[in-house]
């Protein structure tokens, strides 16, 4: 019992030390041989995406949450439809009716959201 945990501890120690060694070597190499020369081109996000403009802490539209909620309608639908579809042939007719009722509920949710104008982007 205790030897099992000992093995795990040894593995853990090795797993931590092993990546630390090259990292420490790289850090030491950089300290010794490459002087710091920051510049405009050197600091740029070369091939790493678009240069950011303006501050990051700005207000942004939160209309997305409505789409997220409507998406949830279909998300939940899928979760329940998958097992139903997998066992479709073994299920009685009443299960089909129950699921159709469930789908109707979700469809009403979507129709309601549509009629309320939630799907129109403001």
């Amino acid at each position, binding site marked *: 019992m205790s030897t099992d945990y000992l093995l795990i501890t040894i593995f853990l120690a090795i797993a931590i030390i092993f990546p630390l060694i090259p990292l420490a070597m790289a850090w030491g190499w950089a300290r010794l041989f490459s002087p710091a020369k920051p510049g405009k081109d050197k600091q740029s996000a070369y091939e790493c995406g678009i240069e950011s403009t303006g501050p990051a802490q700005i207000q942004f539209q939160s209309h997305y949450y409505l789409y997220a909620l409507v998406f949830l309608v279909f998300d939940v639908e899928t979760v329940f439809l998958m097992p139903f579809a997998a066992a479709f042939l073994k299920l009685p007719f009443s299960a089909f009716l129950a699921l159709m009722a469930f789908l109707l*509920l979700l469809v*009403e949710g979507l*129709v*309601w959201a549509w*009629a*309320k104008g939630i799907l129109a982007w403001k």
Partner: protein
Amino acid sequence: MLTVLAPETLLVVTALVVLGLGVSVPKARSLITIATLLGGFLAAAALFVFPADGNFLHGMVVLDPLARIFKLVILGLGLVAVVFASDSFPETHFAESLALILFSTVGMMLLAGTEDLLMIFIALELTSIPLYILAAFAKESRSSAEAGLKYFLIGSVSAAFLLYGLSLIYGVAGSTNLPAISRLSGAPDPLLIAGIVLTLAGFAFKVAAVPFHLWAPDVYEGAPTAAAALIASGSKAAGIFILAKILTAGLGHWGGSAGWGQFLPGWAPALALMAAASVVLGNITALVQSNVKRLLAYSAISHGGYLLIGLSSAGTESLTAVLFYVVIYALTTAGAFGVVAIVEKQRGGSRLDDFDGLANSSPVLALCLLVFLISLAGIPPLAGFFGKFYLFTAALENPSLLWLVALAIAMNAVSLYYYLIVLKHAFVLPAPDAICSAGSPASRTLVVALALSVLALGLAPDLLLAPLVKQNTKHSALQMRTLQVSLSPSLLLPP
């Protein structure tokens, strides 16, 4: 099986139809209200048409006459909120507000008809989530947004407490079924005690007992008045009913005792402490309120305390008294909020000054307010008097609880003062210049009907008490005591 849930199913279908009406004929608000009420009446009829009592899906759905009484009461309170909604909810998204009231009512009805911890939790969430939305429904009003957010944040944290408590109880008992849990015996596991305490904390939030009451004043004040009425009446009645069921049907062995000098650990002393704190803090803090909705919130806290006194006494008769009192309290407070809703529409606010001269401008409304507040204070011949009297005498089944009952009666005397302040504003102080009559005829009629029912239940409490006593004693092996025996100590007359 389907017929057992027929009332709830009908309500859900009604809510969906109402949502559909809301997008197809959004202007026809009275049509939407009538459709909602029609669905509600159909559901009420379904409660009686299908008398299939029994235990379904391993206790997930349980229907007995007691649950049926409570389902009917809760449904009635939901419909009361529907009628008041036309005066207090904003005109945009009106159908949605009615649908949410119906969804919440379905949750409360399911709560009244189950004996399973899982179902209790789901039904409680179904009750709460529409209520969070309803509290925040007046989107233009900052105080409504504040009310919704506070209710939601505190409510979700308390739901987490409750879920953790219920999961610990399940962990110890190995079952989520209340009768199965009650078969567990012997000394309580420390884990079980933790579970009981967390469960109590969750429900104490629901009934706004000190120290879990902080949401109540802000929510009652900020929420649209119909939403506040539903939170104060239906949600409270359902919460007390299911708490009583959990404590007696599931955790009956671990009650302990809250008696003076006879302390035994269990849920009773915890309830007694919360009750004492609620009664004192609720009544004292209500004295300095200048807003009537806030005042009613603190009064609700103190009434939660009275109800917990009955529960902590843990007798059969006190349980009946608690159920009786919570129905009466719910009817009275719903009526009081109805008056507030109409006055708010008339004068644009619910401060004490807004009630000045109400007796001159609308005498019937002022008279109804008098009935509700005097009933809340517990003055005969109104229902509140009999309810309190029965509650306190039944709690004294356990004579060592005298300390708690004496405290409650003393604090009840305090409560008379702040109820009378409201009435002074309504009856004595002169009216301001501009007065216009407001409030839909439906809600005015309903307020009068509620006042009459409070009066009727005060004069003939047997109307409601007889079925409650019958059902409650049928469940237990204890002999039914006649009322005459318990009514004899006349020194306990509340002021």
